[in-house]
């Protein structure tokens, strides 16, 4: 296990290196001068050279690359082009909105989707089972922002039950208002992610149900639900854990769209406004951090999977 851990961590560091390099080269080596594209047409040569200096693009590419990697290791992501504040501070400042949003939607969708998915598999030919399949098919096919708009219209505009968007200026100093403003975003993200998870849980359950050991259990006098309870968790877990990793990553990304729908001042909206303002350091820093999170989640998923399935351990 330790040897595996070492290999897997080395692999993670390698991936981070490649991801960091990819972010760098996508932005610098592709044709075109960022400084020119970043500025409006008709900027003076002075402005261009200022920007070039800020971006460091007046130095040789390899020097820039070395600096970028060195800065990544030390956690220095540079300064915003416009506010001149450190990128890392801006990002950290946005986390109190994004992290609760992503995590609670993630947890909530597990709590809701796992039972529904198992139920839909056991009753897959019943009316409710078919209804679940149909609804989740729709949940996957509908864009998440559409779900958000409809939720806002229904709950905030028609019933006036909750605010349609925004976040208290004082943040979590007003916990009640902060929670209120997160309810609809979390609900929307849960509907979208939950639909995906229900389908995975359903198919993992169907997979377990089709296994011969379930038939063996039934041949020994177990009812179908009891046989599923006896064999389902340990055998379905590996597949579901993998999906949970993907789900956590996509919850994080979902916040980009969700924060835009509900006008929340989180990491996603920071990224979006920076993309539109072409604030290159913020964009590359936020993109790198999000990708790094996805990669770390992948590592955790792999380790948990090995703990759950001893066959994987035996194979290595």
């Amino acid at each position, binding site marked *: 296990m330790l040897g595996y851990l070492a290999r897997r961590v080395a692999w993670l560091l390698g991936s981070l290196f490649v991801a960091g390099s990819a972010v760098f080269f996508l932005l610098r080596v592709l044709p075109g001068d960022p400084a020119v594209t970043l500025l409006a047409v008709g900027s003076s040569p002075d402005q261009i050279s200022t920007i070039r200096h800020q971006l460091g693009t007046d130095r040789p590419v390899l020097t820039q690359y070395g600096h970028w990697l060195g800065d990544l290791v030390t956690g220095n992501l540079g300064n915003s082009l416009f506010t001149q504040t450190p990128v890392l501070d801006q990002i950290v400042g946005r986390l109190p909105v994004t992290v609760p949003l992503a995590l609670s939607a993630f947890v909530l969708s597990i709590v809701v989707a796992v039972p529904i998915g198992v139920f839909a598999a056991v009753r897959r030919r019943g009316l409710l089972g078919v209804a679940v399949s149909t609804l989740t098919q729709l949940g996957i096919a509908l864009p998440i922002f559409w779900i958000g708009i409809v939720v806002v219209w229904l709950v905030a505009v028609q019933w006036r039950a909750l605010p349609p968007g925004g976040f208290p200026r004082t943040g979590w100093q007003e916990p009640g208002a902060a929670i209120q403003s997160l309810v609809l975003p979390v609900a929307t993200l849960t509907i979208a992610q939950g639909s995906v998870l229900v389908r995975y849980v359903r198919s993992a359950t169907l997979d377990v149900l089709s*296994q011969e*050991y379930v*038939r*063996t259990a*039934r041949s*020994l006098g177990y009812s179908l639900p009891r046989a599923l309870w006896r064999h389902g968790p*340990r055998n379905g877990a590996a597949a579901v854990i993998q999906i949970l990793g993907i789900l956590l990553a996509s919850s994080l990304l979902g916040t980009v769209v969700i924060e835009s729908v509900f006008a929340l001042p989180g990491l996603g909206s920071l990224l979006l406004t920076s993309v539109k303002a072409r604030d290159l350091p913020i964009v590359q820093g936020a993109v790198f951090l999000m990708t790094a999170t996805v990669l770390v989640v992948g590592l955790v998923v792999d380790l948990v999977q090995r703990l759950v399935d001893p*066959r994987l351990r035996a194979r290595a």
Partner: protein
Amino acid sequence: MTILETSGLTVTLDGQPLVHDVSFGLAAHDRIGLIGESGSGKSLTALALLGLLPPGMRTSGRILIDGQDHLGAPDRQWQRVRGRTASIVFQEPQTALDPLMPVGRQIAGPLRLHQGLNRSDAERRAIEWCDRVHLPDPARLVRALPHELSGGQRQRVALAMALACRPRILIADEPTTALDVTVQAQILALLDELIAETGVGLLFISHDLPVVAGLARHLLVMRNGRLVESGPVDDVLRRPRSGYARQLVASAATVTRLARPAAREEKKQ
């Protein structure tokens, strides 16, 4: 006394009969062999006898267990029969066992389910059963996972599971087909020993005539979903009446004849 009896058992799929009008009875100490080629409907018959057919298949006829008709009975009623009155051992022990559950717990499960034993008592009985099916070092082995055992050992575990709650009927559906020939012989010997000890009525299903003939006293021959012949083993082997049974006996004889010189040649090399 007959424990399990079926008459006119018919299994259909989309109106097409896969098992047609099968009738026979099974009492304690009986050893019935059911033989037929793959696709002849013998495994479906076995599943039907425990109410385990996949959804979509329709059955008709009668399945009497201790005199009570179970055909079309609700699953709740079947659950009292399965594992307790009648058990089944499947062909492939690799897939019939949960790959992630220690084998001791798999044997203990039915004991806890039917006899209400607590965890430690059930565990102790599981160890006893591992000993009875001659698994080495039972106390340690109960904690092993199926993939840590050999194919023959896995089938021994499956036998222990099936017999743990002392059923009076055991259905063995090609239990040795997936095993090496030498292991096959060991499992057959174990099966012989266990049924002699427990007096369990055996329905042994196979496509392999010599295997069946060694264990069974009565033979049922199945083809295209119908029973084409039934009688004591010796009678069927010596005087097969149906054309199909004659073919089976003849080809088994040919294989045996061909196999012997081949075996000698291998030795020479």
